């Protein structure tokens, strides 16, 4: 089974480990992430002002490309998911913006009709945007994931971190309950982990403020990591490259600011999924993690180091 | 500008009370409709609707209780079935079925009544006036149902002539 896949810029740059581990895990689960032949940045943030047609053009173009490949597109990055899904909803429900955006698509088509990816059709929300984890739950099935698990993770205490962009606004994204989500827990349970519930799992990591005012993001992220530490987690899993960066990379600064700060590895859920599915570690690539998860993985689930 | 004339058949338990609530709450909607209050939407005979169109209505709105909420158990289900059949008949007559609308509006839904009225009036304005005269209706035959014959309003006795009626209606359209 091939499923159209939109990676987004970060997964081709900073978060290649996320991209690779997701692709390998997919293979081990019997499907293939079929990367769109052409795609652009989704714009990273969804515009909250009402007059924003220009700002949704990027996601709409990508959705239009995706519609050439099928009726679904899977993505991994929380920001991409958020932006694509909300832009899709605008295209389905706001006739005025739909018309305006399609003016641009039509112009694209005229200019670049030779490029296969342009459908030449108006985009009106034909594609369903799915998160990889939704795909696992609804198409592959958690039972199937469970059947394919090769590595016992039973002793690993895993804290699932949702962050903001997957959950909110719940009415638009319809991803999960914004206050007590369970989709992540379901997957981790299927993988055989000891799931740790922690109160900050839906709080913000500081997001893009890391670029503007680092201290804000560090403070936010410290709250999240600290909460998982208090619940005795061994590891945090996330689905967002920006969360991963803020929570993991900034632990150096957190440790500088707080005495006795206990570091905690933060990995992508696909990396841990890869471990559970017995995928060779070179495809999971833990080398880019600031807090190395390998010792705790080795200790808890006998993963080879290095 | 064309202002459609609308006859509203409202059941007294739900929609009529909802219309009263819209009033008590001072919600505003256009004054195009005149309400005929009936006990139950199930009282409404398709002939009442046809009569309204014949008598110059541009549209007919029927309001009843939500399914399951009928004061008389299931009158509104009967209405629902009758009206869907009637809509198909209207089409055969050359009357746009959109001119007949059935809505469930409860006594608590003053807001909904206003919304429906606004939408309906807008929609009918777009459709334009119903000009039955130009349609192939039997002009030599009196359309008056059995119970209305010999009992025309205003105290005037039966008008047997369709042609006379047409004249009246034409002048009516011209005035609008």
């Amino acid at each position: 089974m091939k499923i159209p896949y939109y990676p987004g810029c970060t997964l081709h740059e900073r978060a290649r480990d996320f991209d690779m581990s997701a692709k390998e895990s997919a293979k081990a689960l019997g499907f293939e992430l079929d990367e769109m032949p052409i795609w652009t940045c989704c714009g990273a943030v969804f515009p909250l002002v009402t007059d924003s047609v220009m700002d949704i053009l990027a996601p709409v173009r990508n959705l239009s490309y995706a519609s050439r490949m099928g009726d679904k597109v899977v993505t991994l990055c929380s920001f991409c998911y958020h932006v694509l899904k909300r832009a899709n909803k605008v295209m389905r429900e706001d006739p005025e913006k739909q018309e305006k955006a399609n003016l641009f698509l039509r112009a694209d088509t005229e200019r670049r009709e030779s490029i296969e990816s342009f459908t030449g059709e108006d985009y009106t929300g034909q594609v369903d945007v799915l998160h990889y984890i939704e795909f696992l739950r609804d198409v592959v099935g958690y039972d199937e994931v469970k059947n394919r698990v090769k590595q016992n993770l039973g002793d690993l205490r895993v804290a699932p971190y949702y962050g903001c962009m997957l959950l909110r606004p719940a009415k638009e994204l319809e991803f999960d309950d914004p206050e007590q989500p369970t989709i992540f827990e379901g997957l981790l349970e299927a993988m055989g982990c000891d799931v740790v519930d922690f109160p900050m799992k839906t709080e913000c990591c500081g997001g893009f403020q890391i670029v503007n005012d680092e201290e804000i993001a560090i403070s936010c992220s410290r709250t999240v990591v600290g909460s998982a530490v208090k619940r005795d987690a061994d590891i945090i899993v996330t689905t967002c490259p920006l969360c991963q960066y803020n929570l993991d990379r900034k632990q150096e600064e957190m440790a500088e600011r707080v005495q006795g700060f206990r570091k905690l590895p933060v990995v992508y859920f696909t990396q841990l999924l890869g471990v559970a599915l017995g995928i060779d570690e070179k495809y999971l690539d833990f080398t880019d993690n600031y807090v190395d998860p390998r010792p705790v993985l080795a200790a808890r689930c006998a993963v080879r180091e290095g | 500008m064309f202002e459609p004339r609308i006859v509203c058949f409202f059941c007294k338990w739900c929609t009529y009370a909802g219309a009263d609530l819209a009033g008590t709450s001072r919600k505003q909607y256009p004054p195009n409709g005149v309400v005929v209050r009936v006990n139950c939407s199930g009282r409404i005979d398709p002939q009442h609707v046809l009569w309204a169109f014949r008598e110059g209505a541009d549209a007919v709105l029927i309001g009843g209780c939500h399914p399951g909420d009928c004061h008389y158990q299931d009158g509104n289900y009967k209405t629902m079935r009758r009206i869907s059949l009637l809509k198909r008949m209207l089409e055969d007559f050359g009357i746009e079925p959109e001119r007949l609308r059935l809505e469930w509006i409860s006594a608590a839904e003053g807001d909904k009544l206003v919304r429906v009225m606004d939408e309906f009036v807008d929609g009918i304005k777009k459709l334009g006036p119903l000009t039955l005269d130009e349609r192939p209706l039997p002009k030599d035959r009196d359309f008056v149902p059995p119970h209305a014959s010999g009992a025309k309003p205003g105290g005037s006795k039966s008008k047997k002539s369709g042609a006379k009626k047409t004249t009246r209606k034409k002048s009516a359209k011209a005035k609008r």
Partner: protein
Amino acid sequence: MRITLTGEAIKDELIRRVVELSGQNLGACYQCGRCSAGCPVVEDMDIVPSEVIRLLQLGQLEPVLRSQTIWICASCLQCASRCPKGVEFSSICDALRAIVLRQRLSEPKVDADEVTPAMVSDAPQMGVVGALRKLNG
């Protein structure tokens, strides 16, 4: 401390513009403060979210446009998610930033010139793009 309330200020055109751009009904806010209570970055704000809305209700746009708050919001949407009246402070914040940036009322918080290759290769691309779009316009 004193402010003079006038109908004119309350009906201020630019405040109407905030309403229009954000799509939010300022009158819907009954000042429960839940947006402020749940905001993850509220500690760094000079005016908390509910107060921003209050000032706009009172026709006091100036202090809002000058505040740090609008640049500190991380658009995490927690405020909007929990508001009992469905008022999205995050959208009001976007609208306020849009007004400042479009009208060049102050310098952008994140300067594109300051974005270095090192930054781009270290931080995730989405963070840099996101910050530029939200805080530079």
